[in-house]
């Protein structure tokens, strides 16, 4: 494979030619703040052009301009000023402090624009609003911050990635994740990116904005920019925090204690005894009955061994979170440099789980003369995770601990306990004894050289790579469970990605007409390598590396490659900051696509009209802009070789002599291509009363066509494995509001609010290939359905309808058909198809796991040196299936149950002295206690409203007065306290309604909670100092 534009650099040097200067008058001056302190790094630009400079260390600037030009002075945190040059040759200005969010710069992909001139839908997340929060996974930063962006936390495991969705789910069986651009480098994930290094995050929400990233942008584009020094700035930042974690509100489940469990089990056996005894209760005690009716024989033979263990407490630990970051910033004339280093260590709530990250970053940019500048962004990270798979996987240690027998001691070991060997390991010992260790190294490097041969033209060559290396070791020593064998697994994955890119931007200003052009080309190469070894043949527990294995049980090794080649362009026309027009186009060719469809074109157009600069002249309306956009972006999330008919080994032994053979295992699909999302959007940006109230309102409709759909082919193809085809159509629509208000702005007291509101809904409009519906299954039973005209991935289960009464059972009728072996008090299943029997046709659609409404609300207060920020999030209108209820809330006899199953809540005895149990209220209705085993696995019995409102974070800080800290050589000193997951309000009983750890990673069965890793409440104390 040849690199198509590897001669970029050669080209770049070819254009190293002297600059042209134009004879104009020279304007100079000093810019300072209100108190007269010079401001370095202020942007001084001739309005309507790209021509400009920045002030130096002493606030001085010098620029050539003609007398009709208007100079714009802007600096972050200050209000812009404009001055007409006229005859003067010097302007000394003092800029006023103030936040003018409308003038903030938004990253749009290969370029920037001012928010006020944006024509499509982009949301910006300033990390200022995240300062002091103990965010360890960058995805967490998105929670409640941006309209249209949903950050779903499916696990509380430290280091676990959040699931980020921009404007809903477009795809049915393929991923809908956004594309991430980190310092210009397109990557697949934000994994291990240190938030302490992030300056801003911009999200291109619609296909009109995303089209510039073409075939990968249908799920939105997240542009992350890391911190750089400001001109003239020299400082060292130190940020240290440490905190404690506890299980978050609602995440701890109230289970039966040891004595309660014994009583509960004895009750169950009494029922059985009575049943076997012809329904007659003869008044015997458990001890008087045959040991056949003893729930656990050893309780009666070895009563001294009975413990009262709270397994949930035993499996959790006092978790500490620590973070240290040192950053050095140096801004010099024409350049800036930053290096930082960070260490974050977060214990998990579950014993022996831990996430640790070491990261290092260096950023630098330098403009050596008027023509040439260059820069780089380098980060390298090592992260280590312990206990992840054992704790988190379905039926992992945490889940099993909750339902573990509380009469068994925590240090249970088959060799010292009458119970003897059991199949499942003691969950605590499982966490302590099994080696479960992953180690990942990631390096992300981008560099560029930029040349401005003439006024307004900027040619930039960029090179970058993202390499990730992951090793994983797992070793189960002998006797952790009943299986008398050692098991080990070793995995190694290596992912590399390389980018070569050349862009040129040109700015042309003709009076009020302002034109910006971008053209570019890029090539990306990706490769993956994966190996694993698996063995049961180890001679000792002491050596756990594979040199000690005598044979392999299983192994694999494969390599993959992919490439992407792209051309893109953008033209922006701005007439006097009144009328704005934006066209983009991208052409992507991908090796992943079939040979007949290698290339796709993704166009977009958007327009905006700034009424406030045109026909509205009202001092109270600072900004009013309407915009309309249309665009197309693609989703290419398929395997590298999905379009190929692949062969696998398929042998035959002729007369006991082996012959090697090969046979196709996947279908060849030379037409396979991207799925296309077409956005139509309308929006209003507003700012009133001196921008005390500002924000934006958006409506959008996305139509995703040629959906990448896994389709089971008719067997006449010879293949039964599902193939990815372009088929079907999905619509997403919704509206979004971002509203910011400065409520009080006094010298000693400041209060501002920021609200974002998201509405998103979807439906499938077509599936194609004669498919009416797609059923998702868990445990081989249908749980979800996706069908035309209905929302994606809807729950599809039996519906309960009260409980069976005595007369329902004794006089069965077609109106109220019974489930098998039903007894009075069992939950009744609704005969939704009305055929008089309970059968598969009675499954029905019962809502879905995608929230329709997402709200984030932040209030910021400042009183003298104190400040506080409170973030509240609400995720509304979605369902969550608590599969764990099937284990812990079904009256099962073999597992510990929720404490509502204890003695007190049960009627004993009822008629004829027969304890039949009692109805109680729990979950979705009134149910008889002993339902275990009778109810079908998937009913709405454990389907809950997932809606929650969460006091997500409170941060309180104190910033010392400058005068005081000056004396100890500091520029800034701040102490703070931050609390995450403070309060939670939900009807969901399982703790985290967003938990999703179904058997397999399967988008078709989203929202099945098997008792996921609990969320934690974190309280941290920190210090932030600037030297």
């Amino acid at each position, binding site marked *: *494979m*040849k*690199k*198509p*534009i590897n*001669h*970029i650099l050669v*080209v770049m040097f070819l*254009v190293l030619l002297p600059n*042209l200067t134009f004879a104009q008058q020279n304007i100079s001056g000093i810019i300072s703040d209100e108190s007269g302190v010079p401001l370095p790094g202020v942007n001084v630009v001739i309005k309507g052009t790209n021509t400009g400079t920045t002030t130096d260390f002493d606030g001085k600037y010098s620029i050539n301009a003609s007398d009709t030009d208007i100079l714009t002075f802007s600096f972050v945190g200050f209000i812009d000023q404009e001055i007409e040059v006229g005859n003067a040759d010097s302007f000394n200005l003092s800029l006023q402090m103030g936040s003018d969010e409308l003038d903030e710069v938004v990253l749009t992909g290969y370029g920037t624009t001012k928010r006020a001139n944006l024509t499509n839908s982009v949301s910006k997340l300033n990390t200022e609003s995240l300062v002091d929060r103990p965010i360890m996974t960058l995805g967490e930063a998105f929670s409640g911050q941006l309209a249209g962006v949903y950050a779903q936390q499916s696990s509380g495991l430290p280091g676990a990635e959040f699931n980020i969705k921009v404007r809903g789910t477009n795809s049915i069986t393929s991923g809908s994740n956004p594309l991430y651009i980190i310092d210009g480098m397109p990557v697949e994930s934000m994994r291990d990116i240190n938030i302490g290094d992030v300056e801003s995050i911009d999200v291109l929400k619609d296909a009109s904005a995303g089209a510039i990233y073409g075939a990968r942008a249908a799920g939105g584009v997240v542009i992350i920019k890391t911190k750089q020094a400001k001109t003239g700035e020299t400082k060292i930042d130190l940020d240290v925090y440490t905190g404690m974690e506890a299980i978050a509100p609602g995440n701890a489940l109230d289970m039966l204690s040891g004595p309660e469990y014994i009583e509960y089990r004895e009750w169950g056996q009494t029922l059985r005894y009575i049943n076997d005894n012809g329904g007659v209760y003869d008044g015997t005690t458990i001890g008087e009955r045959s040991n056949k009716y003893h729930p656990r024989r050893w309780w009666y033979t070895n009563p001294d061994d009975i413990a009262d263990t709270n397994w949930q407490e035993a499996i959790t630990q006092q978790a500490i979170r620590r973070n240290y970051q040192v950053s050095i910033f140096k801004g010099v004339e024409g350049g800036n440099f930053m290096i930082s280093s960070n260490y974050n260590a977060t214990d998990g709530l579950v014993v022996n789980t831990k996430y640790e990250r070491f990261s290092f970053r260096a950023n630098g940019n330098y403009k050596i003369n008027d023509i040439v500048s260059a820069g780089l962004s380098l980060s390298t990270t090592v992260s280590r995770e312990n206990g992840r798979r054992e704790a988190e996987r379905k039926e992992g240690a945490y889940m099993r601990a909750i339902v573990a027998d509380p009469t068994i001691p925590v240090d249970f070991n088959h060799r010292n306990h009458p119970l003897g060997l059991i199949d499942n390991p003691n969950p605590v010992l499982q966490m302590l004894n099994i080696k479960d260790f992953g180690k990942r190294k990631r390096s992300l490097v981008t560099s560029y050289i930029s040349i401005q*041969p003439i006024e307004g*033209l900027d*040619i930039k060559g960029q090179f970058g790579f993202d390499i990730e290396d992951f090793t994983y070791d797992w070793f189960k020593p002998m006797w952790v469970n009943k299986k008398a064998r050692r098991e080990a697994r070793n995995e190694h994955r290596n992912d590399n990605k390389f980018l070569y890119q*050349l862009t*040129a931007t*040109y700015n042309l200003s003709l009076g009020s007409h302002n034109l910006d052009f971008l*053209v570019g*080309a890029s*090539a990306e190469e990706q490769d993956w390598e994966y190996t694993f070894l698996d063995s049961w043949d180890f001679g000792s527990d002491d050596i756990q590396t594979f040199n000690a294995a005598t044979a392999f049980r299983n192994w694999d090794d*494969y*390599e*993959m490659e*992919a490439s992407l*080649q792209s051309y893109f362009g953008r033209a922006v026309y701005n007439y006097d900051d009144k009328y704005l027009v934006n066209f983009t186009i991208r052409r992507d060719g991908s*090796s992943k696509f079939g*040979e007949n469809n290698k290339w796709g074109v993704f166009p977009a157009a958007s327009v905006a009209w700034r009424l406030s600069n045109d026909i509205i002249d009202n001092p109270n309306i600072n900004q009013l802009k309407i915009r309309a956009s249309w665009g197309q972006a693609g989703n290419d999330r398929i395997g*590298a*070789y999905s379009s*190929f*008919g*692949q*062969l*696998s080994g398929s*042998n*035959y*032994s*002729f*007369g*006991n002599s*082996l*012959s*090697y*053979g*090969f*046979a*196709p295992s996947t279908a*060849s*699909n030379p*037409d396979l291509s991207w799925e296309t999302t077409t956005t139509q959007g309308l929006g209003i940006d507003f700012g009133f009363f001196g921008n005390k109230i500002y924000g934006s309102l958006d409506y959008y409709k996305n139509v995703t066509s040629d959906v990448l759909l896994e389709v*089971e*082919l*008719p*067997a*006449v*193809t*010879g*293949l039964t494995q599902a*193939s990815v085809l372009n088929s079907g159509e999905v619509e997403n629509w919704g509206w979004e509001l971002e509203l910011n208000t400065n409520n009080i702005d006094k010298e000693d007291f400041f209060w501002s609010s920021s609200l974002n509101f998201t509405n998103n809904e979807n439906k499938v409009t077509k599936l194609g290939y*004669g*498919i009416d519906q797609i059923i998702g299954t868990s445990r081989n039973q249908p749980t979800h359905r996706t069908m035309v005209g209905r929302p994606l991935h809807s729950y599809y289960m039996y519906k309960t309808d009260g409980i069976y009464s005595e007369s329902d059972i004794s006089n069965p009728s077609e109106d109220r058909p019974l489930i098998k072996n039903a007894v009075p008090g069992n939950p009744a299943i609704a005969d939704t198809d009305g055929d008089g029997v309970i059968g598969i046709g009675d499954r029905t659609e019962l809502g879905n796991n995608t929230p329709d409404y997402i709200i984030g609300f932040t209030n910021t207060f400042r009183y003298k040196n104190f400040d506080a920020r409170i973030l509240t999030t609400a995720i509304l209108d979605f369902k969550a299936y608590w599969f764990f209820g099937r284990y812990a809330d079904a009256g099962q006899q073999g597992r510990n149950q929720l404490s509502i199953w204890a003695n007190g809540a049960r009627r004993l005895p009822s008629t004829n002295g027969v304890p039949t149990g009692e109805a109680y209220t729990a979950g979705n209705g009134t149910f008889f206690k002993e339902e275990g085993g009778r109810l079908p696995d998937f009913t709405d019995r454990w389907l809950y409203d997932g809606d929650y409102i969460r006091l997500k974070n409170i941060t309180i800080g104190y910033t010392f007065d400058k005068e005081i800290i000056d004396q100890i050589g500091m520029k800034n000193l701040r102490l703070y306290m931050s609390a995450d997951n403070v309060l939670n309000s939900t009807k969901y009983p399982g703790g985290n309604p967003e938990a999703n750890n179904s058997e397999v990673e399967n988008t078709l069965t989203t929202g099945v909670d098997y008792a996921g890793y609990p969320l934690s409440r974190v309280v941290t104390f920190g210090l932030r100092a600037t030297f």
Partner: protein
Amino acid sequence: MKKIRILFYSLITSIAIIGCDDDFLDLAPISQMTTGNFYQSSIQIDQALTGAYSDLNPLYDNMMIRAAIWRGDNSSQTQGYANNLELNISQYNENAGSQVSTDIWNTCYSIINRVNLVIQKSEGVEDYAQKAGHLAQARFLRALMYYELVRHFGDVPLVLNPVGLEESFTIGRTASAEVYAFVTSEFEAVSSPSSGLSSNQNDKGRPTIYSALGMAAKAYMQQGNYASAKPHLKSIIDSGKFSMQSDYAEIFKESNDNGPHVVFSIQYDKTIAGMGNAQPQQVPKMAAEIPLNGVTRKQMVSDDLWLSYEAGDLRRDLTIQNGWTSTEDGEFVPDDRFWIKYAKNNSPATFQEWGVDIPIVRYTDVKMLYAEILNSESYPSAEAFSILNEVRTRAGLANLTSAELSSLSSFFDAIINERRFEFAGESNRWWDLLRTGKDEAVLSAFASPAYPYSSVKRLFGIPEAEILKVNDPSILSQNPGY
């Protein structure tokens, strides 16, 4: 000046962009071969052909043979593994979603696709010595699969080329007569020595010209076409290359695989993991008599079969085990009957890896079919009696003469009945009942009132999944009764 400069840089930029190589995006899988880059040489054609043979293993030891056994009167309607999959077949109440239908359908079309690829792709490969042989084997396998499909399902899609993705949703069923015609003409086409198939008695599991003749005859017999079957059966007998084993027990010994009693068989090899025969494992888990034990009892012998053996029939105890001794407590469990034919005199590598082959056409079958034809032509036929008695003698039974079998039809009944015991535990019984039209009478008498036989069960249901995938009854319709 400025404009020139802009033009200059634009030009350079364009050059940089245009300098892309066309092959940058052409990346083939590294760890897997593809349908696009394989099938390039004689070796690869051979390997692709082996890939087609490969699926014969699961088809015949795990799906097909047992489907036919469950259906007939040799299998118990009530005893078996808890999973109702198998019992439903013998209870005549399985639905179209049955795994049995699905597995047979899918595997047959998998092999057909592999063969179609071999045939299509070999056109692009230069001629080589074994090419004709490879193609003849491929055609034999494809005909064998259509033979199985047509007799299980009736009308089936007849595809003779690799099927495209879109196309696959539009392919309907071809009339069974047409499918049968294709099957017999293909078997006949490869049954001459010039076809490239071996003329030896065996070719180590590859079909010989005699395999093709035998299969052609069986396909004709299944349609009741004695006249067309006869010359093929006669050619096999006249070749002099085959002989029945003199001892019935020897037929199912691994050491006699590919022996002169075998006209065509499916090859199993216990020395290679995953390539053993799983059929013999269907025995009680704790049976002390069975090496390495079995896994479950999925399939139990009917009382009717066990009680129908003539006294002294040596084949009974070589086919069926009546009762077993538990390894757990040494207790004997009586009247619990399971197939032992393939396990009796063999030893496995693991409980589901046995080395013994599964015969598709035995020489005894050839001769008995021939006798059946001779009898139909003129009664009494000395040769037909001779064949019948050769089989009976080997089974330890007395000869039958025209005294006992005094008419054409009584001989016919006798030879069909003899086939029941001779081939018990193989797949012939059900097909014999169908082709002779005896199914209605025999199975109505056999089936318990709770699980009555219905003639709609002559065909298995088209797999429900296929019906749902195509989702258009005008293209792919279901068989009646499902």
